[in-house]
C-alpha cells in the first residue's frame, strides 16, 4: 500500500461530494484512522450548503470489508463497546441524520460494517458482481453501525434474522429483489450511473429532500397521529423555502425549475 495515499479520498464535482474509502490493499477495511476521517468528512459535508448530494464509494475491488480486525487492544469487550459508540454510532447517526441525499456506490463486497455503512445511506446502487455480506455472526459478533435498525426497516423479520444468523452473502440480483439495492448496473457503469443519479438529485430542492428524510426517519418510530402532525410542521418549513417559490413559479410558467437548495 502506498503510505502517502490518503485513506479517504474526497472529490467534489458541482454540488456532489464523493467520499471514497481508499485502503484497497485491505479491501477498504475500517481502521481508526479511516473511521475518524470518514466521520470528520461527514460532519463537514453535513454543515456545507454547497454539498447537495453525497456519494460513498470504495476504491479498488471492494466497497468495504468492514472493521479492520488487526487492531489488538481494541478487541477487549469494554473497548469494543466504546469503539462502537465513539465511531460507528456517530457515523451511522450522521448518515441517517444528514439532511441531503446520500448514495452508496457498492463496487464488490460490502461486508460487516461495510454492509452497515451501505445500508445507512439513503440509496444503494450495486455493481452487478457486488455483494452484501452481514458477516458479523461469522466471527461471533452482532451487526452494528446501525445495521439492525436499517435492516429492520428494509426486510421482514424472518429474512433479516436468517441473513444475520447465517452471514450468507446476498449477491446483487437478490439484493435488488429484496429491495436492499435501488439499482444494479454493469460493474463498468457503476461510477457513471451513480454520478448521473447524484447530479440529478443535487439539482433538486435540497431542503425539501432533507426535510423528507427527517420526516421519514421520524415516521419510522411514530404513530400515524404523530406522523401527520410532523408532516404539517415539516411542510410549513418547506413552504418557507425559496425553492418552493421557484417550484410553483416554474410549474405555472410550464418551465423547468432551477432549484438552489435553499
Amino acid at each position: 500500500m502506498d503510505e502517502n495515499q490518503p485513506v479517504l479520498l474526497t472529490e467534489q464535482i458541482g454540488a456532489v461530494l464523493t467520499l471514497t474509502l481508499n485502503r484497497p490493499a485491505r479491501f477498504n477495511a475500517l481502521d481508526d484512522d479511516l473511521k475518524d476521517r470518514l466521520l470528520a468528512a461527514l460532519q463537514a459535508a453535513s454543515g456545507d450548503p454547497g454539498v447537495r448530494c453525497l456519494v460513498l464509494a470504495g476504491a479498488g475491488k471492494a466497497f468495504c470489508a468492514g472493521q479492520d480486525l488487526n487492531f489488538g487492544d481494541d478487541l477487549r469487550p469494554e473497548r469494543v463497546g466504546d469503539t462502537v459508540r465513539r465511531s460507528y454510532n456517530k457515523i451511522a447517526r450522521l448518515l441517517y441524520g444528514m439532511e441531503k441525499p446520500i448514495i452508496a456506490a457498492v463496487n464488490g463486497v460490502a461486508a460487516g460494517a461495510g454492509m452497515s455503512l451501505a445500508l445507512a445511506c439513503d440509496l444503494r446502487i450495486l455493481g452487478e458482481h457486488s455483494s452484501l455480506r452481514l458477516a458479523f455472526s461469522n466471527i461471533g459478533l452482532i451487526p452494528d453501525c446501525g445495521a439492525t435498525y436499517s435492516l429492520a426497516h428494509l426486510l421482514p423479520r424472518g429474512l433479516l434474522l436468517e441473513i444475520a444468523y447465517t452471514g450468507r452473502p446476498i449477491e446483487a440480483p437478490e439484493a435488488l429483489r429484496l429491495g436492499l439495492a435501488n439499482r444494479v448496473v454493469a460493474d463498468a457503469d457503476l461510477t457513471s450511473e451513480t454520478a448521473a443519479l447524484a447530479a440529478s438529485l443535487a439539482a433538486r430542492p435540497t431542503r425539501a429532500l432533507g426535510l423528507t428524510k427527517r420526516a421519514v426517519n421520524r415516521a419510522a418510530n411514530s404513530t400515524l397521529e404523530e406522523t401527520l402532525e410532523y408532516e404539517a410542521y415539516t411542510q410549513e418549513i418547506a413552504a418557507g423555502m425559496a425553492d418552493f417559490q421557484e417550484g410553483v413559479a416554474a410549474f405555472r410558467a410550464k418551465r423547468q425549475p432551477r432549484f438552489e437548495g435553499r
Partner: protein
Amino acid sequence: MAEPFQHILVEAKAGYAVVRLNRPKVLNALNGALIGELVIALEALDADPTCRCAVITGNERAFAAGADIGEMAEAEAIPFLLNAQFAKWDRFRAIHMPLIAAVSGFALGGGCELAMNCDLIIASETAQFGQPEINLGIMPGAGGTQRLTHAVGKVRAMEMILTGAPITAQEALRAGLINRVVPVELYLREAEAMAARIAAQAPVAVRLAKESVLKALDASIADGVDFERKNFFLLFAGEDQKEGMRAFLDKRQPHFEGR
C-alpha cells in the same frame, strides 16, 4: 419598555412578549446581571395589562448553557449567603402571567433551572437538558434539585444530577420535563402560538389557574383542592366568567376584558 437592557432583548407582540437572552458569544451564560434584567423585565411586563404571557428564549444554539463560571469561580460561601445570591430567582415565582420557555440547543445548569422556572417548555429537536454542576464539584443551586425531581421523578433526577449527563429533547418529553418537541426551525413560532392562545383567554382565570397548579407542587391535596375551590368561586365575581358562559350559550367567540 423603557429599561435599557444589556443582556436581554424584549419584544412586545400582540398580547404577549418575547424576551430573548442575548449573550450569544458565551452561549447565554447566566450572570447575575442577566438574571436581574430578566426579573425586572418580567415584572414590568406582568404589570402591563396588555401583556398576558411571556416567552423566554435564547438562540438556536443555546437557551442558556449554565451559570457564568467566570463570575463564580472565585466566589466565597459567606458573601454568597449574605448577598442572597439566588434571591432574584425567587421573584420568578411571583410572576402572575404564564411563562413559556422556548428552548433550542443547550439548557444546562442554570439554563435548565430557568426553563423549569417557566410554566411551559417548548423545545426544538436539538435541545438538551441537564444539570452538569456535579462535573465542577458543585450541585444545582437555583432550584434544580427540587424542580427537576418534581418534573421527572426521583430516580431520573438523581441520574441527571449525580452524573451530570444531559438528556435529549425526546428523552425530556418522555420524562415529562417538557411539553413538546418541534423541528428547530419552528420552536419559537410554536411557543409564540401557545403564548397567543393563552393571551386570548380570560386573564384572571389564567392567573388563578396558574396559581392553583403551582399550589399542587407544595401543598397537600386537601389544601390544594381547598385553594382551587376558592379560586374557582372567586372567578364568578368577575365579568369574564359571565361573558365566557354567555358566549358559549350564544355559540359565539367570547371577548374577555380581564375583569
